[in-house]
């Protein structure tokens, strides 16, 4: 069975979804999907071990050789991403049962878990596959389930947010489809490895340039990179809180993965960064994104909105690291992928707990919660500190690597700007701390209890991971560095 791990990774949550429909009882379905997600997590750990020791794993689906059949190709980068996605999914799913109790009508609980599993399947499929068109198919699985999940939100704004996301997401996916079509037309293959071999021959053609532009724009739409981010804040803010926690921690990460995969592996480093002026463009957009989104975050009244904007800002950091196109820069991006998943997962889960108890998530509702829900609020604060990049949290590690990468290349002013951007994070995190600890609760609000254990366990698992990986950086840095090096070394 060991040889089949790459496909089992995707197939287990996939097959679990239709089985859920047959189980019918919501509690049973929850347990079952938790097991499926946990299995996927276990497999991803095994896969990462295998890849770190023995190198790239190629799995030919249907037994057909690579460019003719579809190939799953797991290298260090994929394995790392698989670990993040399946891990976060499992932890978040743990809290799902309690959280959706109050947010989603009873008769839709089963559907919720099915869509959750399908969304997980889609993301795992995007990451694991080595075939460009297969990316599109799994992208659509994850997006379609995402639209439905977001539309399950309590308010009517959820519907509108979901619709906007659907339009933007479909345009993005169709752009990717056009791009894949164009490169297919120039090379005659869809397999990513094969593409990376055959593209250099035709790299100087206008068609490949257009293909590159379409793929990048399409991916950036999914990624919510700065000028294309408009769908994200509302989608995150109005979705059920569990869904927000899951997507904030994973969906954009998968899109960043696609960006890295297409620029570094498929089109190749020399094309992406020398033929096309990607470096300056991305660095500028990343920086503007950090400042614009952080500034918007400061003015938000809804805490979910606030952290959604903060997510866009964090994407900015990843893009800056990515745009350096050096090993250290990419390491910083990959580390930040991992770390951001940990902190945003924890923060949004904690917000879900607040919603569970308080019912609302305006800044005013947080008043006095520091005393009433000490553990939950402490988690939000630690997560916030991590966002700022305070030492002893994971946020510090990735910022540190990012700064190192920038200084290494002599981009002093950018490094200073990054630090300034972190100051903005201090402001918005402070607003939450102020509301929670230094303001008296509103007169008419009734006191609330601490969140139930089903929330506290996953939240604190993530927070402890936040601190652990902030102190003991060996594991995460080693994997991220190895993945970055492998992208620069042998192509794919």
């Amino acid at each position, binding site marked *: 069975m060991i040889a*089949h791990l790459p*496909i089992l990774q995707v*197939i287990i949550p*996939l*097959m679990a*979804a*239709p*089985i859920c*429909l*047959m189980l019918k009882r919501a509690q049973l379905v929850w347990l079952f999907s938790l097991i499926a997600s946990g299995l996927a997590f276990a497999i991803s750990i095994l896969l990462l071990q295998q890849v770190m020791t023995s190198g790239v794993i190629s*799995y030919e*689906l*249907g*037994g*057909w050789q690579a*460019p*003719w*059949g*579809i190939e799953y190709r797991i290298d260090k980068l994929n394995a790392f991403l698989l670990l993040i996605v399946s891990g976060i999914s499992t932890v978040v799913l743990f809290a799902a049962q309690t959280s959706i109790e109050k947010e989603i*009508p009873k*008769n*839709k609980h089963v*559907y*919720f878990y*099915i*869509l959750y599993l*399908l969304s997980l*399947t889609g993301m795992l*499929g995007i990451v694991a596959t080595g*075939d460009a*068109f*297969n990316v599109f*198919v*799994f992208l*659509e*699985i994850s997006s*379609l*389930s995402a*639209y*439905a999940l977001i*539309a*399950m939100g309590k308010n009517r704004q959820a519907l509108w947010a979901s619709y906007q996301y659907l339009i933007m997401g479909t345009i993005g996916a169709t752009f990717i489809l*056009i791009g894949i079509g*164009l490169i*297919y*037309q*120039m*090379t*005659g*293959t869809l397999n990513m490895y094969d593409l990376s071999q*055959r593209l250099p021959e*035709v790299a100087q*053609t*206008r*068609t*490949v*340039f*257009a*293909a590159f532009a*379409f793929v990048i724009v399409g991916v950036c739409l999914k990624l919510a990179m700065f000028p294309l981010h408009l769908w994200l804040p509302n989608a995150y803010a109005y979705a059920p809180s569990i869904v927000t926690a899951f997507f904030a921690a994973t969906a954009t990460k998968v899109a960043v993965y696609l960006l890295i995969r297409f620029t570094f592996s498929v089109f190749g480093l020399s094309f992406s960064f020398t033929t096309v002026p990607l470096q300056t463009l991305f660095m500028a957009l990343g920086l503007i994104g950090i400042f614009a989104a952080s500034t918007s975050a400061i003015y938000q009244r809804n805490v979910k909105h606030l952290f959604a904007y903060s997510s866009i800002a964090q994407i900015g950091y990843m893009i800056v690291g990515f745009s350096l196109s050096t090993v250290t820069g990419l390491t910083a991006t990959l580390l930040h992928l991992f770390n951001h998943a940990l902190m945003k997962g924890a923060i949004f889960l904690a917000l879900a707990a607040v919603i569970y108890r308080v019912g609302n998530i305006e800044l005013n509702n947080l008043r006095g919660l520091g005393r009433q829900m000490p553990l939950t609020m402490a988690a939000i604060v630690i997560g916030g500190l991590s966002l700022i990049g305070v030492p002893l949290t994971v946020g510090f590690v990735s910022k540190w690597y990012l700064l190192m990468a920038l200084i290494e290349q002599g981009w002093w002013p950018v490094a200073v700007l990054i630090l300034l951007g972190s100051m903005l994070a201090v402001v918005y995190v402070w607003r939450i701390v102020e509301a929670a600890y230094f303001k008296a609760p509103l007169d008419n609000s009734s006191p609330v209890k601490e969140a139930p254990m089903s929330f506290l366990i996953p939240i604190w698992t993530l927070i402890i991971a936040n601190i652990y990986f902030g102190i003991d950086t060996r594991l995460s840095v080693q994997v991220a560095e190895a993945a970055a090096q492998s992208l620069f070394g042998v192509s794919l």
Partner: protein
Amino acid sequence: MIDIILLTLLVVVAIAIIRMKDLFAVVMLLGIYGLLSASFFVAMDAVDVAFTEAAVGAGISTLLMLVVIAMTGRKEKTNRHKPLPALCIVLITGGLLIYGTFDMPHFGAADAPIHQHVAPRYINDSMAEVGVPNIVTSVLASYRAFDTFGEVVVIFTAGIGVLTLLSVARRKEDAEKISSINDSMHEQHLVIRIVAKMLIPFIFLFALYVQFHGDFGPGGGFQAGVIFAAAIILYAMLFGLNTARKVINQTFIQLIAAVGVLLYGSVGIVSLMNDGNFFNYNVLASDPIAGQHLGILLIEWGVGCTVASVMMIIFFSFAGRLELHQHNERVKNQESS
């Protein structure tokens, strides 16, 4: 020549869609657009695709849109902020694409890269390796079976998504009352009812033909599923939703949708058990070709089941909402008068 005529017609239809304000007309034009593109696909030798596009673009999606328009009204508001930014984006994107065409292989050129790499093996060796005359089927169901699996899952996802959004929980007596009013309206359609009764068996027969003949000609599980669902939908439209619900149990079709996905996936799992890779049908039987045939047959059944039941789920969800809307409006009118 014929492709140029079809393309010109497509452009005309597209412009008409932009300019029309009446959504009903827009939807009909979209149906025409689908049908024209299906004809274009035939001219381009893509018969399987044409079949699907005709069933989906001109059939199902038009139907769904009509149901939605019945609920939302058919007029598009005229006033609208300036279309200039949109025009800019479109011009930039289009310009980029046109820029990209200059280094493209020429239309129909046999020496284009796509005809040199990967594809020749499908054309030359698929008969020996898979043993199915329709190359599209052998690529779809064997070489790239996993993509098709993904496609089935996409359809399944859409079905579940529509259910979460539109399913209405209501008491049984209410359902009876709502439907009885609507059903009485259907009584008048004597002629079509009789004709439909004659046609529906033939449609089922045709669906089965398409399902099994997919190996030899255009067709396959997806087209068969859509046709099968079309027969049921026709029945539901003419005899009333409530009657159709009695014939086709709603929980049952949800179950079938799940079973289809599972059937498809378990073919892969069985091949895993037999020491092959996922979806390696060669190991399903002692003779590789027989194994391929068996595998393709089974997965096409999976596709057919899921597609047919999801199409029904989608239609019933939309039509159920429409029924509720009409009922609510009627109640409102009665109250006001």
